[in-house]
């Protein structure tokens, strides 16, 4: 108490050493800050396994997982399954993104488009994609088609919602500017509408990527004969927790990597913005 009072008094007597104003921003970024949490978790896991607190049948030790991953890579199973999984997710992501963006632009720029599209998509949004799975299996079987369609359904909704929202919230003053410059519709779209909706689109992409992996996990557990999910499914039957964890780590890495890619794109594309986090 006294110390702070003293400091305050000193502060008033020496006005020349005025401190900079109070910061409302969170402060300087911590180097490698994002790695601290996961590293801590990994240490607890390793310590627990080494000390024998964790039964290897419940959770294999980190080094067992690493050697198992090595074995899986050596016999090529990991790469093959990863490739097929990434292909499914990538395909669904691309198709879903294109559909979501096109629908958002159509619904955002025309009243008819909005009247026709927005309602059904809002309804679709209320139904989790995975709840549609039984129907999709009946319609498209259990092959690749059903898998990619399920992922696409999970992807296009957030892309649509956030892009549409971004479009709608473009400042009408910019629209007026476009009118005063008599911009042709194509130029208006390219210079004002799409860049204006880009922050929304990229936010939608972050949700879309998460949804894509989520849908992938589920579809790969249904009668699949390939993919990371299948590999984990098989391991469950043989009680190989190490293989299951390799699969989980892969899913996690893929999710992190793709989210990182979207965030990088965000930072690049939105470098004109100054925000709280900068």
């Amino acid at each position, binding site marked *: 108490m006294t110390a702070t009072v003293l400091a305050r008094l000193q502060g008033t007597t020496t006005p020349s050493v005025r401190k900079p104003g109070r910061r409302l921003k969170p402060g300087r970024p911590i180097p490698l800050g994002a790695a601290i949490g996961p590293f801590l978790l990994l240490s607890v896991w390793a310590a627990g396994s080494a000390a024998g607190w964790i039964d290897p049948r419940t959770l294999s030790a980190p080094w067992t997982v690493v050697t198992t991953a090595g074995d899986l890579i050596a016999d090529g199973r990991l790469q093959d399954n990863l490739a097929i999984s990434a292909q499914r997710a990538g395909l669904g992501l691309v198709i879903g993104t294109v559909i979501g963006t096109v629908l958002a632009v159509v619904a955002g720029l025309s009243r008819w488009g909005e009247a026709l599209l927005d309602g059904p998509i809002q309804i679709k949004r209320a139904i989790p994609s995975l709840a549609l799975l039984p129907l999709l299996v009946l319609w498209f079987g259990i092959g690749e088609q059903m898998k990619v369609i399920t992922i696409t359904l999970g992807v296009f909704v957030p892309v649509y919602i956030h892009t549409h929202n971004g479009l709608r919230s473009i400042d009408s003053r*910019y629209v007026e*500017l476009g*009118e005063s410059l*008599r911009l042709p519709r194509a130029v208006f779209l390219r210079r004002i509408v799409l860049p204006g909706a880009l922050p929304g689109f990229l936010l939608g992409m972050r949700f879309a990527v998460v949804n894509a992996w989520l849908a992938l996990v589920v579809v790969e557990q249904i009668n699949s004969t390939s993919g990371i999910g299948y590999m984990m499914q098989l391991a469950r039957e043989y009680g190989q927790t190490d293989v299951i964890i390799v699969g989980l780590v892969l899913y996690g890495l893929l999710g992190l990597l793709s989210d990182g890619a979207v965030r990088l794109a965000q930072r690049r594309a939105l470098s004109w*913005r100054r925000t709280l986090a900068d």
Partner: protein
Amino acid sequence: MATNLGGLTATGTVRVHRLVRGFGSRAVLDGFDLEIGSGEFVALLGRSGSGKSTLLRALAGLDSDADGSGMIDVPEKSSVVFQDARLLPWQRVLDNVVLGLRRSNAHERGLAALAEVGLAGRENAWPNELSGGEQQRVALARALVSEPELLLADEPFGALDALTRLRMHDLLRELYARHRPTVLLVTHDVDEAVTLADRVLLLDSGRIAVDLTIDLPAQRSHRQPQFLAYRETLLRALGVNHSEG
């Protein structure tokens, strides 16, 4: 809606006949007539809410939300400067300047326009890296790069500090002298109107209450007795209106 009889008059001439503009049942402009000669610099004064922006937006063709009728004849090539600079934050300065240009040499012309407003070398900056005055200069460059016959400006300096505003006055006079567009400048500021314009209009109750030709040399200052006389006239006209409303 207003009919555009483009081509009947000399380039740069503005003609407005029996213009009616309103919102809902309220008429803001009711049978408004106006004629501006080619190359004339006109300032439009008026109380807040008197319909200055409504008129300007009608001339710019930006009033699809208003109801009305009447005849408007404005040059094909016209530009608007808004109160806010209204630069697209996601486009660099040069891209903002040439946004409305659809010619092959847009790049060079954009650079030339930026140099004219004293912003050479800033073409790759983002708009939010510029000061308010600099942003408004970019907006001026964007308006002039298409070589308009009519420049419509709605309180373009309203958001700037007094000193920057004086600099912008000099710049605008200079650009006007070089390009000679017809100018309609909406302002609140009587001094600004008398300093810049060749003719000052005062809008009141949807009509022109005062139409004053400013007969002063190009170099104007508050110390000129004639300047003070114009100022007095306009202020009184505004003040009288004020006590009525």
